[in-house]
């Protein structure tokens, strides 16, 4: 029961965070939307900050799971491409509202803030996964390619969100192919 309550609050909060932004969602908002007392909320999450971090963790987990399914391929090179294309596919989905962790980093730009640190950790993980696969595929400048691919994903996420329907995802996919081809 307690676990379900915790998940329920997290879900309501996550929905508000992704729709209206973290900064413009107060604990009062969340309690009202979830129809629970503030005391109950604080019982499960000691602070808003912890709630945010927990929200980001769940979102990231979901994302990694989806990507793991999408990117099983024979060669490391194919896997790298499938991973990036998988991310772009998610970006292209109709209800895509941005990657939670990346967006949170923009809302909390102070580098010593725990939310910002979490956000940068997410980008770092993404990039190191690209780099790992690129290295496995025998690409010499694996780090550089990884950063290039990360820039494409981030750029496409922002662009597509504000200009849906203009097929930026399609452009980003051909961009990914070009970059991988010219590096390998």
């Amino acid at each position, binding site marked *: 029961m307690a676990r379900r309550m915790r998940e329920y609050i997290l879900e309501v909060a996550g929905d508000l965070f992704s729709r209206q932004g973290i900064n413009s969602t107060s604990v009062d908002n969340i309690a009202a939307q979830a129809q629970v007392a503030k005391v109950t909320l604080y019982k499960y999450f000691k602070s808003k900050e912890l709630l945010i971090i927990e929200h980001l963790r769940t979102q990231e987990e979901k994302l990694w799971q989806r990507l793991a399914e999408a990117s099983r391929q024979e060669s490391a090179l194919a896997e790298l491409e499938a991973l990036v294309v998988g991310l772009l596919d998610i970006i292209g989905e109709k209800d895509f509202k941005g990657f939670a962790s990346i967006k949170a980093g923009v809302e909390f730009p102070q580098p010593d803030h725990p939310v910002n640190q979490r956000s940068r950790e997410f980008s770092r993980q993404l990039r190191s996964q690209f780099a790992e696969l690129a290295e496995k595929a025998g690409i010499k400048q694996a780090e550089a390619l990884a950063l*290039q691919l990360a820039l494409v994903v981030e750029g496409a996420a922002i662009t597509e969100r504000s200009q849906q329907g203009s097929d930026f995802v399609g452009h980003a996919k051909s961009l990914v192919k070009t970059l991988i081809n010219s590096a390998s």
Partner: protein
Amino acid sequence: MDLLNSAWLIHMIERSGKKPAEKLLCVYSLLDTWLSAPGIRERALEEYASQHSLAAACPVLSAHLLRLATVAKLQNPAAVVAQLMILLQGAVAEELRSPGTDALLTAQQAAKAVLADARPPLATRIEKSLLAGGYAAAVTAIAILGLHVWPSGQHQQAQFAQQGTEYQEAAVVDAIDPDLLLKALAFKRNIQSGICPAPSYASVPQDQLQTYMHVVQSGLSSNPALDSRKLEALLAWYEQHRAWECYSKLQNKQKIILGMGV
């Protein structure tokens, strides 16, 4: 980010190289320099938090890149520019988040690969040198592409719609010398398209401010407040104080096109 739509940036891009491909690539280094200037990062972060994408917020920059990509005879210039803008967007975001990661220069390397991939086949390149008139065709092509490719380009659409009305405007006003009126129309168009910087209201001389507002905002049609003398004075003032900031090559071309029309 105002800078990305400014005539200044377009001017710097134009000065940065001879070949259009060089100019396309230098956008990244220009922004790299700009973002490392004192105080800029903080301001950019503030504006950036509003989460508008560059492609949507910078019609002037994307239109200019499209022009360069077309002149460079790249294959599918619109797709190339979309890709360049994605890279630029990602790099600016990354550079703002973690400064000093050389995100923009990495994006520049990626952009090089994009341009190399989109290079025209040899036959087209030879043809290019033979076709002297290709330039004019390119300009038309950009205009058409611009309309199709950038759905957010109300900017360009507005310009197109406006070209139609301009001549109506011209027909209504007969108190003003036609040559002068054409100059005023070109002036208005240059400001609206970002080729020339719009002067801040505070910098326009008091007695000319009203004329300026008439020209830029309410249009030139059936406007009894506008007379040749005032209009001439305004244009002369602009020529003297602000016109040096215009992206000159294009302005000349517009004059030529305008001249052919008359």
